[in-house]
């Protein structure tokens, strides 16, 4: 399923918040059909990287290419039309809109929403169908996460970016979320995922990067990273 064409390429990216340098020259790429994960401790710069890729933050240096086009200075809302969709950290569902309205906003860039996509989302995330008319703010945390993912794929993206989809969820829910992501990936959507849950992320992913204090310190196939001593100690909780 993975072919060799590169969908997303980040080159020598630098991002800062005023005087604070959060990202210090990182390179990464994602090929069509892949699932790629970025691991890293709190404050490593994972969210900053994702927000810069999707256009919410401006880089100070470096370039971002998506689907063979330069998007370094493209506005966030235009990047969505190019086929990238970002489900942000903390879910950020529209609390006073209904579940259905949230999903329709996900399809904002399409002339009319795709009934097939909606049906598919309701199939892999059946909870959402049951709560269709309910306000998103009244959903449980896990349901909100399902909604955030569903909303992000309503635009039929080529690349789905997920920032900590399992954050704050009970283990049984985490399983369900990862199952849904796997299904989305198997349907031909390329996935870039940031996770605290390194083990689950590496099991799902083809490749991974490790980010530490704004720099990439390790990269490789998921198997290599799972077997690496350093990664095991730092992120998989294994003792020497």
């Amino acid at each position, binding site marked *: 399923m993975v072919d060799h064409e590169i969908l997303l390429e980040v080159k020598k990216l630098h991002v800062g918040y005023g005087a604070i340098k959060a990202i210090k020259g990182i390179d990464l790429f994602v090929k069509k059909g892949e699932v790629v994960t970025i691991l890293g401790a709190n404050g490593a710069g994972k969210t900053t990287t994702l927000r810069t890729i999707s256009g*919410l933050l401006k880089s100070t240096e470096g370039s971002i290419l998506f689907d063979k086009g330069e998007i370094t200075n493209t506005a966030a809302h235009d990047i969505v039309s190019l086929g990238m969709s970002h489900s942000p950290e903390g879910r*950020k569902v*529209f609390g*006073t*809109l209904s579940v259905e309205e949230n999903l*329709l906003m996900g399809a904002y860039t399409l002339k009319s929403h795709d009934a097939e996509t909606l049906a598919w989302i309701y199939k892999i995330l059946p909870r959402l169908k049951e709560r269709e008319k309910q306000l998103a*703010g009244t959903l449980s945390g896990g349901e909100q996460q399902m909604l955030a993912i569903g909303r992000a794929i309503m635009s039929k993206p080529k690349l789905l970016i997920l920032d900590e989809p399992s954050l704050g969820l009970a283990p049984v829910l985490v399983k369900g979320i990862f199952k849904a992501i796997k299904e989305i990936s198997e349907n031909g959507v390329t996935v870039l995922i940031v996770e605290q849950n390194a083990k689950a992320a590496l099991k799902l992913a083809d490749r991974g990067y490790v980010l530490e204090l704004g720099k990439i310190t390790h990269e490789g196939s998921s198997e290599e990273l799972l077997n690496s001593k350093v990664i095991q100690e730092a992120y998989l909780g294994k003792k020497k």
Partner: protein
Amino acid sequence: MDIFLQQLVNGLTIGSLYALVALGYTMVYGVMKLINFAHGDLVALSAFAGLTVYTNIFADGGTSIIAVITVFMFTAAIIAVVGVLLERLAYRPLRTAPRLSAVVSALGAGLVIQNAIMLIWGPNMKIFPSDLFPSTIWDINGVVVTFTQLMILGISSVLMIALYLFINKTKMGTAIRAVAIDQDAAKLMGINVNKIIMIIFVIGSALGAVAGLFIGIYYRGITFDMGWMYGLSAFVAAIIGGIGNIPGAMFGGLMLGLFNALISGYISSAWAETFTFILLIIVLIFRPTGILGEKVAEKV
């Protein structure tokens, strides 16, 4: 009973105007968390611009329905453009600045508009022509209803219902609500936030323009500084209803208009303003976010 019914008619009339103006405050606040203090002055500008449009284009008398509709459409378009320029020049550069800077900018922009009105039309009161609407009056068992009042009630109701449906039932309206909740999340849906803010200013200013024209037609006398007075009342109405909440602005406007009219009818119009603020304080004590504000608590 006659006084009550008469003040009911008068109160709903002025309340509709408050509501139209209050919508402008509440929509801008909802999306930008900014009190657009220049909004009242746009209302005043509309009355003056409408007067000029009317006297210049239809100077040779013979008011027709077409003439009146043209005055309303043309003036609303002018004020909408001024509203959009106001956002571009006074608010957009301060979008990420502390809110206090934006408030100061809003107050400054209001003064600029007010002084521009004074420079163009002079400091003295202007009198609006009386022939835009027929002077028909109905006397129903001692309760007087004028044609102008019926027009104000009718057109305001239609505009408010249309706005309500637009905001709640259309894709663009849903996008406006999404931007009001979370601008970054809205961008990630592909929503152009600048475009939404522009639409907000077009709608809010155009509604304010309609109110300004009605104020001219209803009260006849217009002054360059009247925007402050109407703006303040409408702002209070928006807060009473729950600022940021669209049905709240409609409700708050009607309620304040009725309340003012009843105070004027049973006590004295001199007390109307005092009681306006007493009402505001009472509402805020029991409902700090306004009567319809914050219906749903969001989980964070």
